């Protein structure tokens, strides 16, 4: 197979940027980082033409055929191991790669006023970007694991050094949680490796592992599926995060600097959902279709939706509120995936992209206020609409997009998941309907916390203590404009902007399951 090097270039360009940031003169650091983030983004746009055309041509008849821009090099072939450098994207990875390069570019602009040792900050920032891009394009489980761990280190330092007052607690908590998840994933990975038989040898190749018959031992042992599925699930659940593994998230967000929160919510959480769709479901399709598994995942998704929204309603720290709203929104991803319907899968994938946009926007918006008034206590805020009308307009756009207002991106994900899960058959005739109705009440709670926040922050009489607060700056508007535009574009033309690129892969994954319709 011919290597294209394009994807490899996209993945490692930020790493190159890190090297550059470490050596350029101090005054050039920001511009260098921005330059590399920008070029990475522009390069990633070159992926789009690869996915244009009729779905059958682009994605092929089966899940295993849908990968584009594959680069493959032997990496570690000693001591009986066969580990490849093996990357490629399909409808699952490609939108997330694009989202990553975009959000990283915007977060880089949002980092402009980082004063504390910028060299280290931007270096780690670019390293993190490489890690995430690697996760979304690795096709070798070992390589996936390496990139997965690679995101951990820079994130730990970015929170632990550039964070708020309780940054050390938050950083170590984030670190331990993810490490716990990765260890479990590691066990599953090795289990797969030694159980696999691909052309006479063991393999880490994710495409091969998802081919029926490559895991012969798994065909007969139901317990093995379930155990491996649970191990992987916990690993990914920590990242999503799923109740009850979620408590690292509010702490990490509250302490993380604004741009890091944008990346954390916009991209890092997606690694969990991506992992489920890339690894758990294609390798263990039979486990996912077991009623008890689907029930558990579906119920956890609904708990995420409702519980996250309730917790958001209770917060007085604006950033913590947004953090809990992320938990609630990621619940839709879980529910959509769990119930194994085409619409649910599409909704979950769409929700990941939409949430990447809206959560980045919301965390950025909270950061804008924090920069000006130096606190995030929602009770002390108020009346900002009079002082910052442009900011208020953009904020309301962002918040309503997150709330799922029709015409904006949040709506499509939610309605796809709800209408899809209503039709699910994996939980018997009534089960899915009950879950759907409970999840649907989440939209009331969401309206509750969003509108209440808007009221407490923006509405009411202007407060004298915020009289001199400056309006949102041009640089800040520049960050919000792409996010706002995308929120509208994805909401109005969801099919043309996202779903047309992803549905082929998602349908192929579903076809791997017993329960495909």
């Amino acid at each position, binding site marked *: 197979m011919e290597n294209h090097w394009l994807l490899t270039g996209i993945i490692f360009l930020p790493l190159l940027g890190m090297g550059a940031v470490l050596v350029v003169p101090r005054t050039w650091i920001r511009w260098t980082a921005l330059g590399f983030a920008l070029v990475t983004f522009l390069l990633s746009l070159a992926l789009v033409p690869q996915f244009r055309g009729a779905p059958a041509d682009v994605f092929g008849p089966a899940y295993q055929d849908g990968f584009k821009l594959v680069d493959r090099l032997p990496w570690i072939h000693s001591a009986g191991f066969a580990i490849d450098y093996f990357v490629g994207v399909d409808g699952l990875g490609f939108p997330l790669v694009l989202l990553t390069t975009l959000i990283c570019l915007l977060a880089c602009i949002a980092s402009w006023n980082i004063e504390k040792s910028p060299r280290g900050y931007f270096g780690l920032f670019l390293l993190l970007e490489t890690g995430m891009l690697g996760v979304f394009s690795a096709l070798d489980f070992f390589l996936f694991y390496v990139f997965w761990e690679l995101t951990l280190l820079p994130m730990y330092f970015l929170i632990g050094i550039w964070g708020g007052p309780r940054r050390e607690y938050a950083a170590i908590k984030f670190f331990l949680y993810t490490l716990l998840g990765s260890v479990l994933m590691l066990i599953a990975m*090795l289990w797969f490796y030694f159980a696999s038989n691909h052309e006479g040898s063991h393999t880490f190749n994710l495409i091969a592992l998802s081919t029926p018959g490559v895991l012969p031992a798994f065909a007969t042992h139901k317990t093995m599926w379930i155990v491996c599925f649970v191990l992987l699930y916990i690993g990914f659940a920590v990242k999503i995060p799923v109740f009850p593994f979620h408590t690292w998230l509010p702490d990490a967000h509250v302490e993380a600097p604004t741009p890091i929160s944008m990346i954390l919510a916009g991209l890092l959480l997606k690694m969990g959902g991506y992992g489920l769709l890339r690894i758990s479901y294609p390798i263990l399709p039979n486990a996912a279709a077991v009623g008890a598994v689907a029930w558990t995942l579906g119920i956890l998704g609904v708990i995420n939706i409702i519980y996250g929204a309730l917790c958001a309603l209770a*917060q007085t720290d604006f950033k913590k509120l947004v953090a*809990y709203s992320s938990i609630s929104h990621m619940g839709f991803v879980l529910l959509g995936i769990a119930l194994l319907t085409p619409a649910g899968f599409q909704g979950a994938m769409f929700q990941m992209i939409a949430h990447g946009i809206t959560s980045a926007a919301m965390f950025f918006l909270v950061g804008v206020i924090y920069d000006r008034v130096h606190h995030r206590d929602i009770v002390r805020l108020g009346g900002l609409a009079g002082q910052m009308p442009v900011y208020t307009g953009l904020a309301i756009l962002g918040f309503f997009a997150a709330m799922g207002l029709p015409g904006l991106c949040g709506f499509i994900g939610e309605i796809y998941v709800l209408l899809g899960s209503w039709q699910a058959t994996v939980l018997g005739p009534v089960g899915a309907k009950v879950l*759907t109705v409970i999840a649907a009440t989440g*939209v009331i709670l969401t309206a509750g916390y969003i509108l209440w926040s808007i009221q407490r922050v923006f509405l009411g009489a202007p407060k004298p203590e915020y009289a001199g607060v400056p309006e949102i700056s041009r640089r800040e508007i520049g960050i919000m404009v792409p996010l706002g535009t995308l929120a509208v574009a994805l909401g109005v033309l969801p099919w043309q902007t996202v779903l047309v690129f992803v549905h082929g892969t998602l349908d192929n994954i579903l076809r791997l399951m017993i329960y495909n319709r």
Partner: protein
Amino acid sequence: MDMMPYAFITAWLLPLAGFVLLVFRGRKIGEPRSGYLAAGLMITAAAISLVGATRWVFFGHPASVEVSTAWLRLGTQAIHFGVRIDSLTIVMFTMVTVVASCIFIYSIGYMHGDPRFPRFFTYLSLFAFSMLGLVLSDSLLGLFIFWELVGLCSYFLIGFWYEKPAAANAAKKAFIVNRVGDCLFLVGIAIMLGATGAVTLTGVFSEVRQGAFAGHETLLTLAGICLFFGAVGKSAQFPLHVWLPDAMEGPTPVSALIHAATMVAAGVYLVGRVFPILTPTALLFIAYIGGITLIGSALIAVVMTDIKRVLAYSTISQLGYMILALGVGGWVAGLFHLITHACFKALLFLGSGSVIHGCHGEQDIRKMGRLHDKMPITSWTFLVATAAIAGVPFFSGFYSKDAILASALGFSWTHRTHGLLFILPALAAGLTAFYMLRLYLLTFRTTARDEHVYAHAHESPRLMWVPLAVLAVLSIGIGWGRMPEHQAGDEAHAAGSRGWGLVSLIAEAQPAWTVSGDAGTHGSEAASHVASAASEASHAADAAHGFHLPATIVATCAMLLGVFMAWLVYKLLLNKFYFDELYRVTFVAGVLKLAAFGQWFDRVILDGLADGSARWVARTAFFSGLTLDNRGVDGLVNGVARTALAGGNLARLGQTGRVRNYLLALATGGALVVILLVWMS
């Protein structure tokens, strides 16, 4: 005829263009010009739709025209975004554009001097676009999308003066109460999509007709009631009506356009649109909800003293009439009343706005009086609207209310156990005349009770009274016409006497086939006594023909009685300053007791329920968000961490650097990996 949908689509997109322009350039365009821009676009849209409607009526037309384009695929189901035009669409579209034009022009005068003048027209334009989209939509999903958007505009406009906490609270309340209904609306759509695989109205109907719900009639009833709950929220029906009186915090033109003429009627429109799939049980449920709403809010309107709140409760009551009409099978009557009500209620609200404007913000009718001398045009137009809503013969409201009462009487006649469904609206007809005349007399006649208010009152500028005059003409004449003698779709009688006017145009769009009309023959499983009884009632429209005369007599008597009572009170009141005392000694006291009870029930029980459930949610939220999450889930985690830390402290003696911790963990992990690998291979 092919150009027809595109003409309406153009008219629909004009306000959107206004919105986009004003969002980005609003402040540059400035105070009067942004108003003229929005109003100009709206008037153009109205002109286009009037031309279209004329063409539709006088040059022949098919039953419906549809245009759609592929929008997305939901799983394996293709979803189109489409526009469907039939006679009802034409009527609604024209009504919305005409009424909106009047209100846009009026607003230029009313909002004069407001610091956020351009913003106001930005929201109004977005609202007009969303409302017209709702009317044009050919699918449940499309209806839902625009349904939410009109709700959003309503939120922005109720909270337009967001500096006032009451306005901000009212806006939030309106949106969240509506979301309760919307949540069930969404479930209704899910049921429909799940069972029929379609979201377009025509697709759903044909699937249902072919037996998509055969053997699952209860589910169909449930689906109908779920969809209806969307209407309960938006059209402020019991028990979700609590948001509408509070919504009066918005500027008065908003109350006129959104909370009287158009948006709140969207619920009635929705019920009218999904009417064919409503089972007899669902219809009965709908009828009773309408009945409870119309009598309860009419009673409360009697004791209100804020001019806008009287009108708000009156709106709820009139919406109840429409819902009841649909519930008893009077499809044409309900939608006919929707249109006439839009004209006279918009006029009433604009009149009240003119009064408030002229009295410098005073809204308490106890402080008004004798304003007829000061603002004669407002007074005369207000009187016209009062006559229309009270049901004075030859005014538009008379015809539509009469049609509703005839349908209700027809239904009650065939189902004696449901006599209440006629008695309630008949009683409320009297109450309506009473509270409206009371409002008129207290505001414009009697004595001037507050010298200060009276002395400074003045007639509104021309920009405001011209729309009043236009709406007054409509309030009189819009109802004139005659029902065709034959049923829609009944070709055999097509040659029979042809109707004319608005009512006949609406009758053309009446669904030819309904589940309830079909229940007796088709869904035999569901043919309970209610079903078979109500199946006849769904044809109450033709049954109603025989009941027009008695209904007219009852309605007119009730109206006259109400007028007489109001006159009596007025006569006695003429020289009195306080009228509350007077109320107590007259025999009106009984009615007032009931009204007070209604108000108490509304404020204490229903609002208490709304606030109570909000408080309950908040308490749960605080429990889960603060106690459970911090002490429970996180406490568990921290407990584990503490235990681990105790162990870790032993291990890291002398070590403090966190990077080193990390490296240590990595090394340990790596070692574990190697051991595992070796062991497993």
